Structure formats: structure tokens, C-alpha cells
């Protein structure tokens, strides 16, 4: 990783940035992370892009409402090539294309929203008309003929003759009660109110359905009201009051005609209006469809809808301006800094040359210059592929590797699935997982299209799954466990004879894995437990030793010899002399045969090694060589004990003495930073100064301040070292114990499998007959479901988590600093790909 400065003249900034974004390999450094985006030179461009995106999202909603399916872009590369093609054909400066698109989007949005508003208005109108029709029909029913007969006084002499007025209209259903109450209060009960539900929802929906609209904005249910009150005169105070009340409910009020004929006429009128509106709607809708279709259509040579084409272009443009904002502007020159992976200079220079050629006005394009020393720690860059990605992801979740330290992601590719396999050891279960991985790998393209498939989410992890499956399968053979049954593949070395098992011959060994005869013997659990336990400790110690070796590699690479001699060597020795030795005697014990109950206990041996350092072991691991064993254990214990102060003392002492020397020299040179401070300020005043020196000074200042930071208190160093040492020594024991989870989890797995098998299948097979068959079928289903639910999902998860822990805690704490930060390449491809996923999942 190298640090470069980039200088671009203002005129060609866009072209250069556009070219560089195709390279995917630059990591731009923000010159002042504190500066809010809004104060940067291109903030208004970013804002304009945001506005356009917002407009597009408005359009997208409309597209969805009209059930237009967009063609989403699948291949970003070809789209980017297409953009480039379009730019070249335009024969105008590249950045102006954004202006054109922006205007186009604005126009489209206004046009389409207007059309859809028109459509909405018309629909509302139709609704109102149909509502009126309904109201009239219903009112006719409620009021009947008598209302009209009242108009003609049947007895002109009757002084009590009373005229009634009526009000008819529509209100929201939920206001019904309130409406009734207010009317009652206003008229003091002197009015007759009838309310009837209108099922206009139905009309509403049918209307919408016929135009293929979404039904999300159905109106609230409404109801019809009819008020009959005494006093028909226009000017009666009661009527005025009632009119006010009705109007304040903000809904339609309908003049009820005076005679039956008029009602009929009105109905006719409404029907006619309805017809007219409907044909209008049809027209508007066609127009709208046309403009929407334009958005959906693919442009010539482009692989996605025009809408997507615009959206992605705007996104790309926004990304460019955001990154351009990371550059400082001085006069008409942009200056920026970026990280570049080794060996990419030629590519960048070529891109710059390209930019020059493609640039219509042939402005000089930028130049790059390497800057040494690097003022910051470089970002960590991974070159990943589909196989390594999930494993690196596992490591990155814990922490990004420090720049150039050993990346545990590489080893994780094998160790992670292996440790998982040790816990999930079962031939059948492992094979099922393996099949799942195969399915994911070979049907990947098919699965990618099934957006609702749960396998879709697992696709990035397919190589992880297949490896996990493979190692579980392999370890299943080692433990000889097939759904809790042992397979007799190679022929057992034992055969039953009366009540005992007889070994075929003395040299007979089951060729691979555990002899199936153990399953049949009563002590199968005892044997397997001790075997698995020892195996997991051996694996654990190897894993940890490997981690310590990686620490050695790190110290050598960074030329940190102090850590190499005062931390790595004693740690390695300590580990080898204690748990390494334990592993060794475990294996020796496996290889030897002991007679007359003289087989040694490993735990006892280990404890006595410390507690009784001068007593000969009673049951030596090396038969008949108790003296020899005592010597060795004494030496090893001595080395282990010496290692502890070795880890603790030398490092802080050496650092302390170095600090003292450093302090003396620092006090001599204390005036230096002040001078450079002045230089910086002087140069700030003169902005035409070469910026290079400026940066150099900044870099100097930075390294100086880092030095001062490193100058800890010696007390702090002591405390730190003490914690490290205690952690390592205690961690050696507890971490080794922690690897016993390899045994525990595989025990749990095996026991669960056995329980399911015994409970569901084993007993039922003996029943026989039709009943047995039926029961067997039923219990087989139960067995399959349990196996899938508990073992294939929950247990996979559990073993995964434990494997994760073993890597994060037990393995990585031996060497992994994990304080780096990720390389974030400046790449159109990345930003577009990120946004593609979103549109797919919608």
C-alpha cells in the first residue's frame, strides 16, 4: 500500500475522477473528516443528486402503483461501458450529462405527476357522481312518495298544516354519532335524522380495479344522512343553522329535488356525466401509461429500463462528487491523497492518460506523486474471491487485521470447518450439509433468481457450508458415527464368542476410525469420551501453538526483535513445556501397552510434575523408565517456571531504559516542532507555495506527536506487561480447557442423535406386521423432523458459534491485533452493485 497525492486541474476533475472510478483501486483519504459535507465545494452537486434521486423515488412509487415492472440491471460492467459510450457520443463535457438528466427527470416527474393527479381527480369525480346516484336512490327509498305529496296541501283549511324541509347528504361513517348528537342539540330534538350506510367501498374498488390500480387508498366508509325538520322556508333560522352544521362536516350535501320527475331527470343527468368521466379517465390513463412506458422501456444497447439507467447514473454521479469532496481545492487545482495497492501506479497513470485522450478539450489531466513517509497507517486491502470471502468476513467481524500483520483469514479457511467438523461429527449429518453446499454451488444461478428462497441468503456462504459438511463427514468416519450407529465398513477386528469379544489377531487394527465393536460393547461411552477428550486437547494445543508461531512471524516481519525474544520465545517454550508435553505423553500412552493396572493417569502425572517434583512417578508413562521421565519433567517444569519472569521482566526494563535515553534527546530537540509549526503557518499564508513541503511538515508533525504518545509512563508499561503475562499463563490453562468444547459438543451431538434414533426408530422396527409398518412410517417422520429441526439447524448453529469462539478467543488472542481499517476502493462498480441488490430485494 502506498500513499499518493493527486493533483487535478479544476477543468478536468470530473473526467479524471470518472476514469479513476473504473479502476476500483483507489482509497481516497478525506483531508478533513471534521468538515461537514455541507461546507465542501461540491455539496450542492451532491444535494442536486439527492433531489433527483428523491424525484425518481416518487416516480418509482407511481410505477409500482400502475404495476409496471422495471427491468433491473444485472451486469454493472456492461452498464458502465454503456455510460462511457453515451458520453463519447455526446461530444460535450462529461459532467454536463448530469444536468441534462436532471432536467429530464424534473420534466418527467412534473408531467407524470400532473397526469396522475388528473387521473385521481377524475376518479374522485366518478366517485362523487356514483355517490350521488346512490344517495338519490336511497333517499327515494327512505323518504318515499309522501315527501312530495306534502308539497301539495291536501287540506288547505288545516291551520295545523306543517311543512317539512329536508337535508340530504353524505358524511364519514365514523362521524355518525357525533353528527346525530350535534343535530339533536342544535334542533333541540325537533328533527328526524336517518342514517344509512353506503356501500360505496365497493364502487370505489370496482372503479379502481377496472383501471388496474392499487387499492391501497380506498376511502373511508361513508354513510348517507337524511334530516327532516319542520319549516320548509328557505329563511327559517333552523334551516340556516342546520345548513351550517352540515357544511361544517365538510362532506357533500345534495339538493333533493322537489318531485319524482326531477329525481328521475337528475338520475339521468348523473348517469350521463358518469359516462363522460369514464371516457375521460380512459384517455388520461392511456396518456399516463404512455409516459410511464417510456420509463420502463430499455434504451438501445442498454441492459435495463430507462428509469434504472437514470437512477444508477445519478447514483454514480453522486458518488463521484462525494469523493471529489475529499479533495481540497486551492485556486483552480484539486489536491487529494489516496492509498494505492502495490504495483498499481502504471494502471493509474494509464487511466490519467486515457482521461487526457478522452477529454474533448485535452486539458492537462492530473498527476500523481508518491509521498514518503506515510503519515497514517495504511488501510488493509484484501484481494478476495468467492471462496475466501466468507472466511475473511468471519475474521473481519472480530476486527480488521492491522496493516500487513498475519491475516488469520487464510488459516480460517481450513481450521474453521475442521473444528466445526470435530463437533458436528456424523457421517450422515455431515453428508447432508455437504449436499446442501453442493446444491448451493451448482444451482447458484438458478437460486439467485428465486428472490424469496431462503437459500438465497446462504449463497455467499456456499463454500463455507460445503467445507463444513465435508469435515463433519470426515470426522464422522473418524468417530465412526452414522446417526449414532457405527458402520462396519472394513470388518471389525473382534468377533463375538460366548459372552466376550475375541480379537481376531494381535496385529489386527481397524483401518480407519473407531472399531464398530465399541458401539456394541457396554463401555462405548467411556472409551469415546476419553478418546474425544484427548483428541480435542491435542487439536487445541496444536491450534494454539500455531497461533503463537504466527506471533513470531509477525514480530519478525515488523522487525520487532524485542517482542520476538521477550514475548514470543518464552511463550512458545511455556506452551511446549506444559501442554505440549501433556500432548506428548497422551500419545505415548496410546502407543504403549501397560500391564497389571500400571497404566498411568495423565492428570495425575501432570499434577505430580509440579507438586512432587522430586518423587519418581509410581506409574511412569514410559514403561520402566521412571528415572528418565523424572529428569525430563524436572527440566520441563524448570523451563516453564523460568519463562514466566522472562515474559514479565525484560521487556518493560528495556523499554524503560530506552525511554530515559529518549527523554534526554527529546529535551534537546524540543524547539524543533515549534519551528516547523511556524513554517506551516508561514506557508499557509502563502497559498501558492508548493503544497508538498507542507504535507511533509504535517507528516513530520504527525510522527512527532505519535512519538510523544508512545512515550508512556513506565508504570503503564509495567501494568500492561503484567496483564499480558498473567493473561497468557492463565490463558494457557483455561484456553486448553476451553478446547474441551470440541469433545462436549460432539458428545452432545452424538447423544442427541442416539436418543432420536432409539426413541423413534429402534424399538418400532421390532413390532412387525401392518401396525409396525404404520408406526414405523409415522415415527420415521417424527425422526426426520427432529433430526432436521434439532440437529441440522440448531446444532449446526451451535457448533458454528463454538467454532467461531475458538477462533476469535483461543486462537486469535495469541497474535492478532485487529486494529486496522478496511481498504475502501473508489469504485463505481461497488456503489452500483450495492444499489442493485436493493432494487432486487424490493
Amino acid at each position, binding site marked *: 500500500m502506498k500513499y499518493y497525492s493527486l493533483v487535478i486541474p479544476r477543468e478536468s476533475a470530473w473526467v479524471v475522477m470518472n476514469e479513476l472510478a473504473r479502476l476500483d483501486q483507489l482509497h481516497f483519504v478525506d483531508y478533513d473528516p471534521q468538515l*461537514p*459535507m*455541507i461546507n465542501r465545494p461540491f455539496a450542492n452537486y451532491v*444535494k442536486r443528486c439527492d433531489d433527483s434521486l*428523491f424525484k425518481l423515488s416518487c416516480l418509482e412509487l407511481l410505477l409500482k402503483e400502475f404495476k409496471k415492472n422495471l427491468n433491473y440491471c444485472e451486469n454493472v460492467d456492461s452498464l458502465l461501458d454503456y455510460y462511457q459510450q453515451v458520453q463519447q457520443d455526446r461530444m460535450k463535457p462529461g459532467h454536463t450529462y448530469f444536468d441534462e438528466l436532471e432536467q429530464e427527470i424534473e420534466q418527467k416527474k412534473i408531467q407524470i405527476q400532473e397526469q396522475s393527479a388528473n387521473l385521481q381527480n377524475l376518479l374522485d369525480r366518478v366517485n362523487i357522481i356514483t355517490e350521488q346516484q346512490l344517495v338519490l336512490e336511497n333517499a327515494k327509498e327512505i323518504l318515499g312518495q309522501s315527501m312530495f305529496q306534502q308539497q301539495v296541501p291536501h287540506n288547505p283549511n288545516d291551520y295545523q298544516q306543517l311543512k317539512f324541509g329536508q337535508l340530504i347528504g353524505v358524511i364519514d361513517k365514523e*362521524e355518525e354519532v*357525533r353528527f346525530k*348528537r*350535534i343535530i339533536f*342539540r*342544535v334542533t333541540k330534538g325537533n328533527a328526524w335524522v336517518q342514517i344509512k350506510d353506503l356501500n360505496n367501498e365497493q364502487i370505489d374498488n370496482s372503479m379502481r380495479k377496472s383501471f388496474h390500480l392499487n387499492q391501497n387508498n380506498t376511502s373511508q366508509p361513508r354513510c348517507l344522512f337524511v334530516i327532516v325538520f319542520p319549516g320548509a322556508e328557505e329563511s327559517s333560522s333552523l334551516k340556516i*343553522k342546520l345548513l*351550517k*352544521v352540515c*357544511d*361544517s*362536516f*365538510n362532506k357533500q350535501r345534495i339538493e333533493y329535488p322537489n318531485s319524482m320527475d326531477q329525481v328521475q331527470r337528475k338520475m339521468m343527468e348523473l348517469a350521463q356525466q358518469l359516462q363522460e368521466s369514464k371516457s375521460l379517465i380512459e384517455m388520461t390513463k392511456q396518456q399516463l401509461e404512455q409516459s410511464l412506458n417510456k420509463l420502463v422501456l430499455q434504451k438501445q444497447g442498454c441492459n435495463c429500463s430507462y428509469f434504472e439507467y437514470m437512477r444508477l447514473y445519478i447514483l454514480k454521479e453522486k458518488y463521484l462528487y462525494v469523493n471529489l469532496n475529499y479533495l481540497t481545492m486551492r485556486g483552480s487545482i484539486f489536491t487529494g491523497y489516496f492509498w494505492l495497492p502495490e504495483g498499481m501506479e502504471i494502471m493509474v497513470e494509464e487511466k490519467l492518460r486515457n482521461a487526457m485522450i478522452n477529454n474533448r478539450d485535452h486539458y492537462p489531466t492530473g498527476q500523481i506523486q508518491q509521498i514518503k513517509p506515510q503519515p497514517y497507517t495504511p488501510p488493509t486491502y484484501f484481494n478476495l474471491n468467492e471462496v475466501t470471502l466468507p472466511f475473511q468476513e468471519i475474521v473481519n467481524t472480530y476486527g480488521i487485521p492491522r496493516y500487513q500483520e498475519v491475516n488469520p483469514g487464510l488459516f480460517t479457511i481450513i481450521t474453521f470447518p475442521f473444528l466445526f467438523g470435530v463437533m458436528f461429527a456424523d457421517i450422515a449429518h455431515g453428508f447432508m450439509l455437504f449436499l446442501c453446499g453442493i446444491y448451493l454451488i451448482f444451482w447458484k444461478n438458478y437460486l439467485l433468481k428465486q428472490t424469496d428462497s431462503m437459500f438465497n441468503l446462504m449463497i455467499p456462504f456456499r463454500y463455507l457450508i460445503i467445507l463444513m459438511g465435508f469435515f463433519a463427514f470426515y470426522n464422522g468416519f473418524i468417530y465412526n458415527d452414522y446417526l449414532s450407529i457405527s458402520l462396519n465398513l472394513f470388518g471389525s477386528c473382534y468377533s463375538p464368542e460366548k459372552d466376550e469379544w475375541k480379537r481376531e489377531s494381535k496385529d489386527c487394527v481397524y483401518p480407519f476410525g473407531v472399531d464398530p465393536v465399541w458401539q456394541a460393547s457396554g463401555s462405548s461411552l467411556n472409551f469415546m469420551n476419553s478418546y474425544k477428550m484427548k483428541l480435542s486437547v491435542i487439536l487445541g494445543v496444536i491450534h494454539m501453538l500455531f497461533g503463537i508461531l504466527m506471533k513470531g512471524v509477525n514480530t519478525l516481519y515488523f522487525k520487532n526483535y524485542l517482542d520476538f525474544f521477550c514475548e514470543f520465545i518464552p511463550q512458545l517454550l511455556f506452551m511446549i513445556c506444559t501442554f505440549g508435553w501433556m500432548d506428548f505423553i497422551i500419545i505415548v500412552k496410546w502407543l504403549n501397552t501397560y500391564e497389571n493396572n500400571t497404566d498411568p493417569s495423565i492428570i495425575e502425572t501432570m499434577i505430580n510434575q509440579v507438586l512432587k517434583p522430586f518423587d519418581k512417578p509410581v506409574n511412569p508413562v514410559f514403561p520402566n523408565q521412571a528415572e528418565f521421565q523424572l529428569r525430563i519433567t524436572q527440566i520441563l517444569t524448570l523451563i516453564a517456571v523460568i519463562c514466566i519472569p522472562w515474559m514479565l521482566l525484560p521487556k518493560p526494563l528495556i523499554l524503560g531504559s530506552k525511554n530515559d535515553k529518549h527523554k534526554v534527546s527529546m529535551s534537546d530537540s524540543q524547539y524543533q516542532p515549534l519551528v516547523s509549526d511556524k513554517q506551516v503557518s508561514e506557508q499557509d499564508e502563502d497559498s501558492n507555495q508548493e503544497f508538498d513541503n507542507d504535507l511533509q511538515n504535517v507528516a513530520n508533525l504527525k510522527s512527532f506527536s505519535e512519538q510523544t504518545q508512545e512515550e508512556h509512563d513506565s508504570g503503564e508499561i509495567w501494568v500492561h506487561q503484567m496483564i499480558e503475562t498473567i493473561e497468557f499463563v492463565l490463558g494457557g490453562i483455561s484456553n486448553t480447557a476451553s478446547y474441551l468444547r470440541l469433545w462436549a459438543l460432539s458428545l452432545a451431538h452424538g447423544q442427541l442423535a442416539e436418543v432420536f434414533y432409539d426413541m423413534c426408530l429402534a424399538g418400532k422396527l421390532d413390532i412387525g406386521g401392518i401396525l409396525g409398518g404404520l408406526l414405523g412410517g409415522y415415527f420415521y417422520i417424527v425422526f426426520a423432523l427432529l433430526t432436521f429441526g434439532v440437529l441440522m439447524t440448531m446444532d449446526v448453529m451451535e457448533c458454528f458459534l463454538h467454532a467461531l469462539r475458538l477462533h476469535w478467543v483461543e486462537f486469535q488472542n495469541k497474535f492478532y491485533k485487529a486494529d486496522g481499517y478496511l481498504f475502501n476502493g473508489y469504485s463505481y462498480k461497488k456503489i452500483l452493485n450495492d444499489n442493485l441488490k436493493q432494487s432486487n430485494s424490493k
Partner: protein
Amino acid sequence: MDLCVFGVDDGYAEAIIRGLRASFLSEAQYQQMKNCASIPELKSFLEETDYQNCLQADNPQIPTSILRQRLKKKLADEFEYIEAQSTGTLTKYLFHLRCRFMIDNVVNMIEGLKNKIDIEILLSNIDPLGWFPEIKNIKVLEGDDYSSLYRDVLIDTPIGVYFMKFLEESIENLHENRTLNDIQNLFREMKPEYIRTSLKKMWLEDFYSFCESELMATSQEVLLELLKFEADFKTIQVIYNSIGNRDLNTAAKIITTRKQLCPTIGNLYPDCEKLYLQAMTLDTLREAVKGCDNYRDLLKDAPDPLKREEFNVQTKTLDDIMYDDECRRYALAFDGQGSYGVFYAYLKLKEQEIRNIIWLAEMISRKLAKNHPGWKKIIIPFSHLGK
């Protein structure tokens, strides 16, 4: 004890409030807002803050009235969300908070209708926090007849109770042999502002007694304190405004008005007779409140109400001083846990923030010079914490 059980019902709502607390604009952000040169710039700045979503669909040249409406809508939405998450006492409590806005809305409607402003405009200007379905029916109001307004429309509404009390009180104050005409005259002359003040007084007293009787001890501790101060501020304000008021020409009138409008709670209440009777100038008012807290310090900077005509934008009015002090107290309410005080304080402080933004928007749209004293006239919630 209530700290143990507070979380059972109200923990979630409180957590939301505490989350929303992060949305307050910081002092640096106010500084940036002051630097905005135009309304579009201010709008684009606000879009970077928590107000993003409520403004995005609008035109950059947003009028201040629309801006206010949008900001208030956002606050109302948040409040509604919390209300939906609340149960039991908290729901009742939050409803009480709403009543204050309802009173404002009703009085605004009455005022607007009196001035013959179109109902649609009035409806679009109401505070969404105080919306209730009956509000649009106020139009039914005929002439100045408040009693029929109450009888026909407001009787069912949450603030109907206050309105009824108000009517009763105002009628009682009339002389013995009153006629219907007298009552109508009384209402015709009554100023909406007077109605607002008396309704709010009743609301405050009611809210106070609600807090006293139904809330748990921790909430009471915070809220009663806040409400007492609020009541005191109201009292001081009423007295302050009555000094030299032309409508109140006789001493007796001043005293009855004061008695009617001053809340019957708070630190000043029990022995405020002296206050009512004697405080006829600013100095005597200062003298009268000296016993309580920092009131005297507050009044020290207040301009003399007798010189009301000379006030201009630069004057730091009594209202400003009190807002400032209230702001500090509300911010303190966020300190304690397990109390309902935060809901009240949040509402108040957000109101203040909206006032600030609107004020700044006004300043910006009038293109006032940056050294104009009006720029300093904003009270930033939580700003005292930094000091």
C-alpha cells in the same frame, strides 16, 4: 418503589423520548443556521438534521407558515406515536398535555371567525397537536354567543369542562338581575385573549390536581415543581401585563381581573393578595415576588410595562426572559429517570426549538444584517448544559 415498576408500563415510551432527545439541534447547528443566507439554504440545512423527512417533498422557497406547519406536524406525529405506545395513566397524562393545544386552537378559531377569516385557512393553520374532530364545527358559532357554542359543539369535547367553568364564572360576575342581553353583551366585548388566559389557567389548575392525585411520587416531584413555576410565571405575566393596561382603568377592575386570571396554585398563590393589590408598578411587583426563588432576578431585566410603546425588536421582553428560564428548568427535567416530566419537557422544548427555527427563518427571509440584535433572540434548549 415507583422506579421499580415504572418500566413495566411506561419504560418504552420513556425510552422513545430519550431517543428523541438526540434530535435537538445543537448550538453549533444553530450557528450554522444563522449563517444561512437564504430560505432554500436553511431548508437544505434542516434536511441534514432530524427534520429531513418532513421537508423533503417541499419547494426550496418554503414560506415560513408552511415551514412551521411541517415542523409542528413532525412534532405531532412523534407525540402521537408515543401516545399510541402508552397505557393507563400515561395515556391520560399525555391527553392532558394535548388539551393545552386544543385550547389554543379553539381560541384561535373563535378569533379568526370573529375577524371573518375563511374557515379553510383557519383549519389549515391549527396546531396538529391540538386537533380534535369537533374543531371544524366551531363554524356553527353564530355571532358572539359563546354559550350556544358550548352547548352545541364544545360540550362533548375534552375542553368542554373548562369552557363550561369559564362561562359559569363569567356569568356569576355579572350583577344580580342580569338579562340574556347582558350576557350576550358581555361575550361580545370579551377578548379572545381573555378567554385563552382563563381557559389556560383552568387547564393548568386541573392538570396540577391531576398530577397531584394520580401520578407516582417521582413524577410528581418533577412535574409539580415545573407546574408551580409555570403558574407563577403566569401570575407574574398577568400582573405585569395589567400594569398600565388601558382597558383596565379602575383599580377595582384590575384587581378582579387579576384574581380571575391568576392560577390558584404555585409558590406565589397562597399569599398573593398583596401582589394583586399593591403591584401597580414594576418596582412594587419586584418587591412583591422577592420572597420566591429567582423571580426577582428575572424581573430585574424586564422592561417597564408603562413604556410599552417604546418596545421594539431589540427589547428583551418579559416573555423572552421567562422562556429562557423555563427552558433551563425543562432541560433539567431530563436529568431524572422514571418520571413523566420528560414528556412535558420534551414537548415544551421542541416547541421552543420550532419557535427558534421559525424566528431564524423570518430573520433570514427579511435579509436582516448579521449584527441585528434579533439574531441573538433565540433560546437554545440544553445550551446551559455545556457551560
